[in-house]
């Protein structure tokens, strides 16, 4: 018998063959004592294992002791994930904060350029502009002197 033929006999026993292949295998076993002997051996082992009762195997620890380790691990994992979730939120806020200062600078510059336009009506009094409330960037403009100052805190105030 070839290896493939032997595996075919096993597949026949396990119900893994098509109907046509199964019939061919059974015919082979009926007329070939070697194939039949192999089929019987495989069948004996399969049947023996099917009688094996694993319910006799018991966990060598009490219910309480066994559970306590699981419960502790679950508690640890859940508190850990809460910390991670909290940490992530803080990170997001910090990332946003990092962008606020450059945005404030750009906004202030844009404002300064706009105010310097020649067609803008001159004013007799200096003006103070708070460009972005959150950024603490402030513009001072004095048309009389042709002066515009922009100042801001860096990094943005927490």
């Amino acid at each position, binding site marked *: *018998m070839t*290896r493939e033929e*032997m*595996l075919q006999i*096993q*597949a026949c026993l*396990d119900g*893994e063959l098509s109907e046509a292949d199964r019939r061919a295998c059974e015919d082979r076993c009926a007329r070939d004592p070697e194939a039949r*002997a*192999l089929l*019987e*051996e*495989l069948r*004996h*082992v*399969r049947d*023996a*294992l*099917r*009688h*094996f*009762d*694993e*319910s*006799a*195997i*018991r*966990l*060598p*620890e009490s*219910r309480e002791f*066994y*559970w306590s*380790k*699981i*419960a502790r*691990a*679950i508690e640890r*994992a859940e508190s850990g994930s809460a910390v991670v979730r909290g940490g992530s939120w803080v990170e997001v806020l910090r990332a946003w904060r990092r962008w606020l200062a450059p945005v404030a600078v750009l906004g202030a510059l844009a404002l300064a350029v706009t105010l310097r336009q020649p067609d803008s009506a001159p004013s007799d009094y200096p003006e103070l502009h708070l460009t972005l409330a959150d950024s603490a960037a402030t513009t001072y403009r004095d048309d009389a002197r042709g002066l515009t100052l922009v100042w801001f805190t860096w990094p943005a105030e927490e």
Partner: protein
Amino acid sequence: MSSDRDLSSMPDEALVAAAKGGELAAFEELVARHRDKVYARALSILRNEQDAVDLSQEAWIKAWQRLQQFQGDSSFATWITRIVINLCLDHLRRQKRSGAESLEAIEQEVGNIERLMPPVSFNPTAGLERAELQARIWEAMGRLSVAHRTVLILHEFEGMEYRRIAEVMRCSLGTVMSRLFYARRRLAALLADLKNEPDAPKDPS
């Protein structure tokens, strides 16, 4: 509230639903109910008590974390058993990387032995008392390589088809068939040998 109910009388499905809602007491009841089976599966594959205890506990922790994914397509017992089997196989793969016996190591070792061995011409378990049959099968399974033992367990105890075993063990269909074939032939020879040995093997329990 869990204190208002007798959890031990509730079916698995109700306990799973309660556990999905965050009721840890319901999950504890599931653990109490199935812990022996989960441990037995780990022990039958690994043959190491402490590893089996540790991995079975790890399986329960994973089950709690993934409980929302359990849709009831299989029984809860089947689901948790699949988790512990996967953990055992991962554990064995890690051992392989560290140089211990691998899942693939015995293909070369066995060579063509299965072709040379004549079939055992008698039923090696015939006439045995139940306890003795149990003990001999346990002993013989313990003498198989882990790869052969695992494929037998998945096929005979878990009822998996070849294709499913190949997925779980991450190997080809041909490898599954080959391992299963060798495992059975080897087990037949071991059971026949044990029948002739004077000292009875130890009972698994």
